[in-house]
């Protein structure tokens, strides 16, 4: 019992929690932005892979880290644009189109990686983002290391929570995005373009998702592996429902998830001898399903989610 308490008191646990939460924060924010505008984006898993590959490859080719981040976001936005074209003006099934984007994005990223680097046996490494020591702030006991000994991408994720919250709740654009996800007819009646709003939201959301992938290869690790996204995108789709489509709650959900994951890793070293390690590996996915089941009945989906809207149709 004391051992369990020790886990929570150790600051390395909280550092790890925030680190694990970072890609999920990007992913949930991205999914939230798409869904607030009425478009489910199941391309997320593949867009993570694209972000991870493009960001890493750009830096590997010699560009600075932040250019890699931008390239990842651009790659994500491009696949987001494809999903948006298929689901917004063409009004195709968001489920099937999203799965198609995931398959297409994953195979594109894998094909490009293998074609550019055909003969590497062990994945080459880049010099990834390092935890930054901020003078004075890092020396604050406990909070200092937890918040300020993270990499710049974790900070970017935290900043994006604020940005997305501000855009959605405090700007006319945000009001329009929410409206287009609830009642596109009303938006159209006001003379705004339903298509432009939805396509823009999906592209921006997909760029955020790609940053989640980029964090994996440029911050958490320093190389690209096949299968490294490993369901993180799907977990974000569950978390966004858990977060009732609110940026603040999205941060909370991702953090709770990160804490749980960091906790199970530490529990594994304590109890690994008695319980098979796979039980711990399953835990994050089981947790996502349980969380989804608990909130599902109360969830207030954006009212026009999944519903195509055609100009001139009633």
């Amino acid at each position, binding site marked *: 019992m004391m051992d369990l308490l020790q886990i929570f008191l150790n600051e390395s646990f909280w550092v790890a929690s925030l680190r694990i939460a970072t890609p999920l924060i990007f992913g949930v924010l991205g999914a939230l932005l798409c869904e607030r505008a009425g478009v489910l984006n199941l391309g997320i898993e593949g867009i993570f892979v694209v972000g991870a590959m493009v960001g890493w490859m750009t830096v590997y080719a010699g560009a600075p880290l932040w250019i890699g981040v931008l390239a990842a976001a651009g790659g994500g936005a491009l696949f987001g644009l494809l999903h948006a074209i298929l689901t917004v003006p063409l009004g195709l099934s968001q489920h099937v189109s999203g799965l*198609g984007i995931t398959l297409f994005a994953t195979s594109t990223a894998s094909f490009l990686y293998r*074609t550019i680097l055909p003969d590497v046996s062990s994945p080459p490494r880049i010099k990834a983002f390092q935890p930054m020591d901020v003078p004075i702030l890092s020396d604050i006991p406990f909070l200092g290391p937890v918040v300020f000994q993270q990499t710049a991408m974790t900070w970017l994720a935290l900043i994006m929570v604020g940005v997305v919250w501000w855009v959605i709740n405090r700007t006319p654009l945000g009001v329009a995005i929410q409206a287009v996800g609830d009642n596109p007819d009303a938006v159209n009646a006001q003379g705004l373009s339903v298509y432009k709003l939805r396509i823009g939201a999906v592209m921006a959301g997909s760029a955020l998702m790609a940053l989640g992938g980029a964090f994996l290869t440029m911050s958490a690790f320093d190389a690209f592996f096949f299968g490294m996204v490993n369901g993180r995108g799907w977990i974000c789709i569950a978390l966004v429902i858990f977060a009732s489509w609110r940026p603040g709650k999205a941060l909370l959900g991702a953090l709770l998830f990160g804490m749980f994951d960091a906790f199970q890793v530490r529990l594994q070293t304590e109890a690994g001898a008695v319980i098979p390690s796979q039980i711990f590996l399953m835990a994050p996915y089981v947790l996502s399903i349980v969380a989804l089941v608990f909130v599902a009945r109360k969830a207030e989906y954006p009212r026009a989610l999944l519903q195509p809207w055609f100009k001139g149709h009633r």
Partner: protein
Amino acid sequence: MMIEPRGGISKRMQMAIPVIAAFVALALAALPLAFAGAPIFPAYWEMFNGVFGSMFSFTEMLTRATPLIFTGLAAALAFKARLWNIGAEGQLYLGAMGAVAVGTGLVDGPAILMIPLVMLAGAGAGAAGMLGPAILKTRFGADEVVTSLLLNFIILIFVQMMLEGPLKDPMSMGWPQSEPILDNAALPRLSDVLPSQITIMDRMRIHSGLIVALIAAVVAQIALSKTTWGFKIRAVGENAAAARHAGIGVNRTLLGVACISGALAGLAGVSEVAGLKGYLTTDLSPGYGYSGIVVAMLAGLSPIGVVIAALYVASVFVGADSMSRAMGVSSFLADLVVSLSLISVLVGGFFARYRIRFTGKAGSPS
């Protein structure tokens, strides 16, 4: 620009769209081929030759198509009822585990009992794998897309755990693999059941799982188009509220479809483990569950169409593999073509249902 619905889609149009989409996807593959620096037409020829060049490669393609028919049917039936079963990959592994659990020595008997028993165990395990998400949907309203997707990861880790624990082969020298399926529980090779003049080579791996898959497709086609159950599935899929109003037990229908869909995906696992590989490992399926979704969409959710679409997807995989070996192009090209086929068939479906009319601005003469 205006988007107008067309009157209706002719049967011929419906059949033509996937064929056009398949060719468009193959044509688009010229871009990645050029990027990889491969000579384009020889590469296509190598792909074609890799499937139709010899009797052996052709039967390899049929062997690849077998699990795809099962997972394609699993997706097609579920999607028909608008039940989004994206968990066929996990259900495939559950089916394989079910087959291994009873087929490696737990019980023994003549093949005529053992083969149906192994198939039942696998189908049952697969059905249970989709029944879970379906119950979470009908009881708690939890989105089955997310739950069935996440279950894929849980099940694969569970397989790892079983292969390091109760299902581990003590003779495997530490490799995580199951004991081999007993000879009399294995699905026989076609070279063992067909007359010898048809089977030219004994290296051929094609097995009787293909026959089971074809029977399943025919049964599914008849069930869907000729029975009340099939009518209910279509009614629930087209308009659940109206179906409920008409007195159809929507939840019951969904749970039933979930079981059948899961069972079919489970049979894919049985066929791979008891027909092809002989034992279970964690790399049994290179994503057959996900490719099954593409197969189902290419087939327009028709069970007979699934057979044809599975042959196409399997040809892409086998052909691209062979081309990749010959020309040093990454075999991810196959995944690229398959995913492009899905996107093409979606877009094709749109243009069949709607026409786009370009009009001038309101008020301007047109």
